[in-house]
């Protein structure tokens, strides 16, 4: 009975979403206050019904109701309770429900935190979000009903994909979706502004905090996914340029561009059309990501069940939402770029370059991701675009970005003398180059990539510090907005430093080890001390003992395992990772080689890999810090 109620809740929510999409819009058009006022109650009640549907599905999982097909496919009575709960979003239907739930939460949040905004604007923004909600709810109800019955009921469920039985699964999808869906707010503000025909600083000021929150969540979500893949899934790397990763990275890049262009539009009135376009693009790319993951058009490690009807449905939805908004943009975008004039060298110009580089990076990734599809459609054969393409081009695009970042904050709006800023930063550039040189000399054999990493990290950090120093010396202090920017730019420094150290400095070795034998790797000495038999709760394992020393001091004792599970005798490799701020050590047991206790071992040293995720965390913190800026709290003038 309950599952039917769940579907009913979704149908109610769909009706409410249609009302939310029409009534307030009509009200705003006619200036009817009563109709506009329906937006908030509709937003609340939509959230209530979707929340109820979600609770019902979660309940079906927790009580192992295998008469629901989706539960039977993704759960099992033996699954621990927490994974029964996270299994709700373990596959297509449930994760879509989570998506819809998060969307309705964002809608409710906009309804709650927009009391000071003019009623017609709020009505239009909520109505646009209502239409997005209609699309997703219809998708859910008509092609992906999570409450479909399985009759007769299964006695036992098929169990959740073991890869997903992991703490990472608890937080990674919700955070990622919060980021993805959050761009719907900036999108709705943009569409509302286009409908209203009023794109001014006020409008951007209202939508900026929402963009920041969404982008911050997306940053954490992506970083967490990367960390999870590295740490728990044992994939060894931290980024694979997989289509699904790319699908989340494109809106992130465009979102980063949007943050900067919104700041420009708010303060100077410039780039109004561009800001609108980016707001549309960030959300469109989120939708495109959903399409790529769920239509089965591209093959990926993350692939959801592919179903052509679903693919077609999302494509039509995509065409309506994106095509419609771009059409609106084409007709309604402000004809003059407006804003205060600015000289060839000014902060506006630098931000424009920033936007250009980030947008190019996103376009480059889009081309690389979709190229196999294009090649197939044109019958050029199956071609896959690998990490070398992405690495090279992304590196080329990020190089000028890294060089220019410190110039942004110390360059004045409107007009600046290039020589002044160059003089200000020259000593710090010198120091950064020195750091790179020192790193080069200090690395074994003069590793260029890690040296560039050191120089880039130092340059970003020192250049950003120069801006803080300038503010403090003038006794001005930092506004929350500036503090956020500083944090995020420092995060960028940590990130680039970590990436280049890891990519350039990681070393790995496959060795055949006999007990007592030592192997030198990157200044560390790995001594294999043999293996012992251990009995786990449901497995037998060979546990290796590897003592790692550095200049004679023991830094880690590692215990990689090779487990044979009692059920079916499957064999699993449990690598051991010893993490530290400046390096990760990684040891995995391969195969036993002989009767004398010899084993094949795989050893890695990955320098500074944790800085990658630390950097991402700083960027997200920076984005959140900006919210506390007084400008965003002041009532509209």
């Amino acid at each position, binding site marked *: 009975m309950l599952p039917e109620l769940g579907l009913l809740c979704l149908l109610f929510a769909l009706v409410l979403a249609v009302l939310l999409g029409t009534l307030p819009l009509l009200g705003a058009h006619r200036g009817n206050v009563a109709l506009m006022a329906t937006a908030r109650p509709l937003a609340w009640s939509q959230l209530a019904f979707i929340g109820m549907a979600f609770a019902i599905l979660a309940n079906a999982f927790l009580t192992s109701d295998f008469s629901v097909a989706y539960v039977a*496919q993704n759960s099992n009575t033996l699954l621990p309770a927490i994974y029964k709960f996270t299994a709700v979003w373990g*596959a297509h239907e449930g994760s879509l429900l989570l998506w819809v739930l998060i969307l309705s939460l964002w809608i409710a949040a906009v309804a709650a935190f927009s009391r000071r905004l003019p009623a017609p604007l709020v009505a239009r923004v909520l109505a646009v979000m209502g239409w997005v909600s209609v699309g997703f709810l219809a998708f859910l109800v008509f092609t992906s009903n999570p409450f479909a019955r399985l009759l007769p009921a299964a006695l036992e469920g*098929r*169990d959740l*994909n*073991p*890869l997903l039985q992991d703490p990472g699964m608890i937080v990674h999808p919700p955070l990622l979706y919060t980021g993805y869906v959050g761009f719907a707010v900036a999108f709705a503000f943009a569409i509302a502004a286009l409908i209203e025909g009023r794109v001014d600083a006020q409008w951007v000021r209202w939508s900026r905090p929402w963009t920041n929150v969404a982008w911050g969540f997306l940053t954490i979500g992506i970083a967490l996914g990367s960390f999870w893949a590295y740490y728990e899934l044992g994939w060894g790397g931290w980024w694979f340029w997989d289509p699904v990763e790319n699908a989340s990275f494109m809106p992130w890049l465009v979102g980063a561009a949007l943050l900067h262009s919104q700041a420009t539009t708010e303060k100077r009135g410039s780039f109004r*059309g561009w800001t609108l*376009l980016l707001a*549309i*693009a960030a959300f*469109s790319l989120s939708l495109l990501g959903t*399409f790529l993951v769920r*239509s*089965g*058009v*591209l*093959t990926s*490690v993350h*692939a*959801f*069940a*592919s179903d*052509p009807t679903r*693919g*077609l449905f999302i*494509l039509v939805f*995509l*065409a309506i939402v*994106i*095509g419609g908004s*771009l*059409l609106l*943009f*084409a007709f309604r*975008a402000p*004809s003059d770029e407006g804003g205060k004039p600015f000289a060839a060298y000014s902060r506006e110009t630098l931000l424009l370059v920033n936007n250009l580089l980030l947008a190019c990076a996103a376009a480059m990734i889009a081309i690389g991701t*979709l190229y196999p*599809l*294009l090649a*197939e*459609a044109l019958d050029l054969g*199956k071609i896959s675009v690998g990490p070398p393409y992405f690495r090279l081009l992304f590196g080329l695009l990020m190089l000028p970005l890294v060089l220019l970042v410190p110039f942004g904050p110390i360059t004045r709006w409107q007009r600046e003398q290039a020589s002044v800023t160059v003089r200000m930063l020259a000593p710090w550039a010198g120091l950064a180059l020195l750091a790179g040189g020192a790193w080069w000399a200090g690395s074994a054999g003069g590793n260029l990539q890690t040296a560039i990493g050191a120089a880039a990290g130092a340059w970003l950090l020192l250049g950003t510090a120069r801006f803080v120093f300038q503010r403090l010396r003038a006794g001005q202090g930092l506004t929350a907005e500036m503090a956020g920017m500083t944090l995020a730019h420092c995060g960028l420094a940590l990130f680039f430093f970590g990436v280049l150290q890891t990519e350039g400095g990681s070393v790995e070795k496959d060795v055949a080890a006999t007990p007592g034998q030592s192997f030198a790797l990157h200044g560390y000495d790995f001594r294999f001390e043999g293996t012992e038999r251990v009995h786990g709760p449901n497995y037998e394992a060979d546990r290796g003992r590897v003592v790692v020393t550095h200049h004679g001091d023991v830094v880690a004792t590692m215990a990689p395992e090779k487990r044979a*599970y009692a*059920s*079916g*005798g*499957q*064999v*699993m*490799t449990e690598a051991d990772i010893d993490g530290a701020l400046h390096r990760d050590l990684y040891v995995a047991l391969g*195969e036993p080689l002989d009767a004398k206790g010899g084993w094949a071992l795989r050893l890695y040293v990955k320098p500074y890999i944790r800085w990658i995720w630390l950097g991402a965390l700083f960027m997200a913190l920076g984005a959140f810090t900006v919210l506390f800026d007084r400008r965003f709290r002041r009532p509209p003038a």
Partner: protein
Amino acid sequence: MIRRFWPLLAFAALAVLLYAGVRMNSGRDTSAIASPLIGKPAPAFTLPVLGQPGRVVSRADLLGKPYLLNVWGSWCVNCRDEHPVISALARSGRVRVIGYDYKDEPADAQRWLAQLGDPYEFSLADEEGRVALDWGIYGAPESYLVDARGIVRWKFVGPLDDAIVSGQLEPVLASLEAGK
């Protein structure tokens, strides 16, 4: 003015491409794309056997009896859906069922088989997907019926279900048996 239509035009081009993708994809499910391999010898290959270190199997080893080569992977969700059908087919003894573990980590693949049950006589392991190019494997699941002389007789892209087994696979099998 025309400048502002560029984003729309770019998106229209993208939408056409994605539509082509969906079409190609749905083509796969009805197996509208006939494999050029049908009626031709199966490609030569030598692949390790999953979970049996040291054992390799090549094309010649499989001659003598028809077999169904079923492409799967632990990462493939549709393979889970298909699994009961493959298991039933293997149990029925109508044809040898040989797995083809495509682009998979051996440890993941073995866990998958241990969890769902292993219907296959054995599974060839193509971790990198190199041999798959010769077979023209698009993804998983896919199934190839190869006769006793090593000629590919039938191919299906997408998960098998009972209707396809009885409506398509079994007639081809019957014709093979009749031809003997």
